[in-house]
């Protein structure tokens, strides 16, 4: 048992971080505001780095790596606030041709129960080559044109365009119910990894600011009320990270635990950590935190978007409760 990152995993995380720093510096990511399509060059760079194919077998053009490797990669993508349907395209790579190579962007939707009143929303629709719908029967694949969709004008996350779906047609069943459950589970865990990266990024942003900003002739980080906000941010991020990593390893090593329980728990804690830390980051920045300039709000909005995609927190908690 060794629950530290292996040399391999650490090197991969490091390489991803460097890649994100050079290809996705925050100024560049922010330049995408208001655009309704994903930047094709950027997407290709992600594909070349193996973001979508790394868990595919080598014969299928992948790297044959595990979910633990994917988790550390997605953590870095979250930290850098990289936009686009990252997790959906990654988990779809085993089903949709061209997803692993970056030629196809894929959306993932969980079919809502009958009689719903709330709208179903899908991100990045104009860029998608396919949409996968998971439900009790299995995985359905639909061409985006088959969806009756209407663009939403003011999405919460300024870097992610949204569409509202009027209907979700049946579509061709491309994989069975077991695969559908696996896709959804992997989607939970890797989305949670994105969220953990975001939770850490804002914790660091707040801590740095607390060291620099001075009031009453001293750094605000010397005030205990601020210190404790920062300490709590670290605790939330580290606890969530441990749960995401444990969930990822449990997918790779099924005999060590219950991967769905671990995945739902990780999704729950990572959502909380990302949202709560982004809010605390705004607070630590004072008035600056309320400006468009400080990126805390971008993390908050992205965290809200990603965690919405995991279902209601109540439901995730119940999944854990049923499986304790």
């Amino acid at each position, binding site marked *: 048992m060794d629950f530290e990152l292996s040399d391999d995993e650490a090197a991969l995380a490091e390489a991803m971080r460097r890649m994100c720093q050079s290809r996705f510096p925050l100024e560049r990511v922010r330049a995408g505001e208001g655009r309704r399509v994903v930047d094709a060059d950027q997407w290709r760079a992600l594909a070349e780095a193996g973001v979508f194919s790394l868990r595919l077998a080598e014969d299928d053009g992948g790297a044959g790596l595990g979910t633990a490797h994917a988790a550390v990669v997605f953590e870095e993508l979250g930290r850098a606030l990289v936009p686009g349907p990252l997790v959906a395209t990654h988990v779809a790579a085993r089903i949709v041709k061209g997803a692993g190579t970056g030629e196809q962007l894929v959306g993932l939707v969980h079919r809502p129960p009958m009689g719903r009143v709330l709208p179903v929303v899908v991100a990045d629709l104009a860029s998608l080559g396919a949409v996968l719908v998971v439900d009790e029967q299995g995985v359905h694949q639909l061409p985006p044109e088959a969806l009756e969709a209407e663009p939403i004008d003011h999405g919460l996350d300024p870097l992610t365009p949204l569409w509202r779906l009027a209907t979700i047609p049946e579509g061709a069943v491309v994989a069975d119910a077991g695969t559908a459950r696996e896709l959804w589970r992997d989607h939970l865990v890797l989305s949670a990894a994105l969220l953990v990266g975001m939770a850490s990024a804002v914790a660091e942003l707040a801590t740095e600011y607390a060291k620099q900003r001075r009031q009453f002739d001293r750094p605000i980080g010397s005030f205990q009320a601020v210190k404790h906000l920062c300490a709590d941010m670290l605790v939330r991020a580290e606890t969530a990270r441990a749960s995401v990593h444990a969930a990822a390893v449990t997918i790779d090593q099924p005999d060590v635990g219950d991967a769905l329980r671990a995945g739902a728990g990780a999704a729950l804690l990572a959502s909380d950590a990302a949202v709560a830390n982004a809010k605390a980051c705004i607070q630590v920045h004072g008035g600056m935190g309320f400006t468009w300039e400080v990126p805390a709000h971008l993390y908050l909005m992205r965290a809200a978007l990603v965690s919405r995609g995991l279902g209601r927190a*109540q439901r995730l908690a119940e999944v854990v409760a049923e499986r304790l």
Partner: protein
Amino acid sequence: MDLRYSEAEETFRAGLRAWLTDTIPTLGAAPSPHDWPARRAYDTAWQRMLYDAGYAGIDWPAEVGGRGASPVEQLVYLEELERAHAPYVGVNFVGLLHAGPTIVVEGTPEQRERFLPGILKGDAVWCQGFSEPDAGSDLAALRTRAVRDGDDYVVSGSKIWTSHAEVADYCELLVRTSDEGPKQRGITWLAMPMDAPGIDIRPLRTIAGSNEFAELFLDGVRVPVANRVGEENDGWRVTMVTLSFERGTAFVGELLQSMELVGELRALARRTGAWEDAAVRAQVGRLGAELDALWGLARRNVSQAARTDVPGVGGSVFKLAFSELRQRLAQLGQDLLGAAGLSWGELEADDGSGPLGNARLLDVWINSFSRTIAAGTSQIQRNIIAERILGLPKG
């Protein structure tokens, strides 16, 4: 990242499990928590059994009589003991987890020879005399004074919150030996025999109604200089060295026990019908997810200790998160009991299905309040995290 145990670790587990399976049924019933002499007898008898089976001082080096187990084996050990519902370390806590490790690292060969076997065999019980009425979180402000007189130190002052002082043979005592320079520099570590003349022990009643800890009044107590561990005025460093001996496993037993508790709460909620309430199910699920996460964090801390031999800073993160989680878990237990949560006496369920287990859940509940105070309060943990991990300036 690898969560599978190696073959060697599994072999260790199997041997331990077999021994526990044979041994646990031979233990008598646990004594009343209010009967200290009986508790001492029970806890030390268990320690002796561990010793005879080669499981005493699991993490202590082999050259001082320990098992020299790896950090991961230590984790397996805690897992198996919890699984088998083995007795808790109890009155052996300070000896095995604090005073003993201090002597292992800082003691002279004679001191190791003199003190360590008694701890391992359960012959000697230690208590911890650190806190004072005016020195709690600010431990270095302690004032109990020791003055050198020939081959002895003469100690006067008072200590407080000393757990199981009444049944201890020795006290690991921090005393002031100098007022010069920074207050940390004038502290000395002594092993004080509890039967020395001049020690007055006055039990304090806790909110749980027990005498878990006591106040010690020391009036001219003579402690041989030979009982000093480390140099005079170097006691603060000596104490900190021990803290770094800790591999982040201190609360693992209780964490695993909490996982079992969450299962019990679910069972209780099903019995009472509270499980119909989605909010209750969500609360149980959330606590379960948090416990799972902390189990991950514990394994991470242990893995770090195994790799670097230096425990990570994760210990404070774990202590803070777990103690607060334990309180919420305990609160859910009290909530689920409804009106039965108002009685310390064991109550039967209305439907004739037997005892509700309210006394035990209330015990968990009331004791959970000490978790965020003892061994460094939550506020102090946050200060440590902010200053030592995040590098925020001292204020």
